[in-house]
């Protein structure tokens, strides 16, 4: 990778600067001086490089930047939900405090650990790819996928419980019961939860809960698909220490999924008190 673009450019630049116009393609006019041409791109790098890139480094830099810009759009996507959450939490703090006991901190904590651990295994998978250790890459990708599946299974158990408790927002019988046990927030304790108004506000909480975790769960699902594709490709010996950009990019995506959960967990499960039940 020694010959960089700049070296090329500098070389050709010095040779053509004397008569920049003469080197112009077309050369119909003298306008447009200021551009010189250098020899076309040279083929270097033994591995996959798309035709529009000059060097693998350029390709990697482009992929990396593209991925990060994509993640920035993801921040804004989830940001819309977080904004709604913040606004309604500020408007109806008591109702929201009464709603979170319906979330099981037990499942939430298990899932948090599952995702954090999967982030670790993903980071180790990227490391394995960087060092060209195919066997370890397979292993860590497998771990990550398994943990992602654990997350989804736990999530579906929670969803089932919520549906049984009439907390599915699409249901005609939606009703949020007063949570069992002591209510720590004195303001919240005074709320008449059975009034239609309070049920409407509770429904907003669960609307946010379902849509936010739903969208997050969808991202986990996509992650499983991507990770499985990596796993299959790795078994086909596609990646090496010279080429593993997809592993790294999927890693970024997976850490982002973890990142979202890191915020969802306290907002949806913990504010209002952690309640340990299954």
């Amino acid at each position, binding site marked *: 990778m020694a010959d960089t673009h700049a070296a090329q450019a500098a070389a050709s630049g010095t040779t053509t600067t004397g008569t920049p116009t003469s080197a112009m393609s077309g050369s119909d006019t003298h*306008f447009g001086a200021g551009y010189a041409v250098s020899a076309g791109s040279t083929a270097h790098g033994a591995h996959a490089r798309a035709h529009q890139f000059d060097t693998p480094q350029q390709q990697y830099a482009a992929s990396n930047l593209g991925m990060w810009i994509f993640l920035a759009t993801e921040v804004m996507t989830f940001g819309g939900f977080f904004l709604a959450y913040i606004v309604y939490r500020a408007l109806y703090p008591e109702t929201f405090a009464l709603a979170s006991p319906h979330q099981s901190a037990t499942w939430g904590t298990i899932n948090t650990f599952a995702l954090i651990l999967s982030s670790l295994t993903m980071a180790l998978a990227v490391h394995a790819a960087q060092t060209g250790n195919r066997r370890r890459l397979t292993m860590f990708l497998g771990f990550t996928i398994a943990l992602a599946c654990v997350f989804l299974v736990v999530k579906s158990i929670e969803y089932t419980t919520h549906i049984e408790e009439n907390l599915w927002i699409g249901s005609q019988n939606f009703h949020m019961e007063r949570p069992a046990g002591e209510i720590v927030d004195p303001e919240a304790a005074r709320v008449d939860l059975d009034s*239609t108004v309070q*049920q*409407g506000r509770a429904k907003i909480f669960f609307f946010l809960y379902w849509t936010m975790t739903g969208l997050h769960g969808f991202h986990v699902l996509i992650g499983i698909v991507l990770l499985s594709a990596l796993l299959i490709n790795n078994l086909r010996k596609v990646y090496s220490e010279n080429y593993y950009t997809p592993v790294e990019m999927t890693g970024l995506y997976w850490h982002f999924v973890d990142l979202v959960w890191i915020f969802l967990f306290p907002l949806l499960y913990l504010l209002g008190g952690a309640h340990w039940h299954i």
Partner: protein
Amino acid sequence: MGVGASSVAFRVDSLFWWMTMLSVLISAGIAIALVTFAIKYRRRSPDEVPVQIEGALRLELTWTFIPLILSIITFVWAAILFVQMSRPEDDALEIFVQGRQWMWKAQHPTGQWENNELHVPVNQPVKLSMTSIDVIHNFAVPAFRVRQDVLPGRYTTLPFTATRPGVYNIFCSEFCGAFHSGMVGRVTVMEPREYQAWLSGATQMESPAATGQRLAQNLGCTTCHRDDNRRRAPSWVGLYGTQETLDTGETVTVDDEYIRESILYPQRKIVAGYARPSIMPTYQGQLDETQLAQIIAYIRSLGGMNQQQPGGDSSVPSTDATPGLEPNSGAPGGGAQDEP
């Protein structure tokens, strides 16, 4: 900007004309410069290359700061005026306004209500407290230079002081459905004496049908009950005395009693083909029996098969006097348009 009839109109207009003047000067300057340069420096030979001017920092700063200063002046002017416009006077006469698809309803402190009409005394600060029962509307009186959204579930206030007696338009200025443009009304600015007289309910003599017609317009009936819009509500022309099939399969004759019932309890008998629950609001409590008879007289005057004498005074006793008892079978609070 049209006739100004409120205490802020002149000040808003002054700001408007100040900005217009600036805009005309700036646009004219740029237009003249563009045209002059384009003609004066037009290309005279195909190979012409002009002097290259890269820029001038001092000039850039000049045309950054002059607009900036003008902007700040205009902003401050507008902001001060806005705060004055939006803060109601302490002694303001408070009138409660309710918007709904597609009519305005105003209620005076003494309890009088009026639909699509607003009577206010001249030179008296007024504060409208407004809310909507369905979607967002906007109460706009161009002559007063005021405008404020009317939101469901919340109050917004619109203060103004009318300064010139007369009749001015009220428009709904936020799109609120197909008959948005029919949601218009009139504000009548009166001398305080006349306003008091109006409050005490002085009306002139006219035929029941004519009064009924006026009522029907003021109440917003004719927003939906119009000739060209049979889909939302039946036209009244030729309606009286006809036989209609209800959505329950029964038939009913459109007579005085049916019309009265439909005005007071619109959900009871709905003609087949119209939505249930009906979009028609109840007018229970808004119309006394005389006014009901006047509206029926007006409908009858529009023609039909069975020409009867008006039953103006034959009050039909209502068996069920609970206000608003017609169940809206929609989802809780889902609004008047909810399907069951």
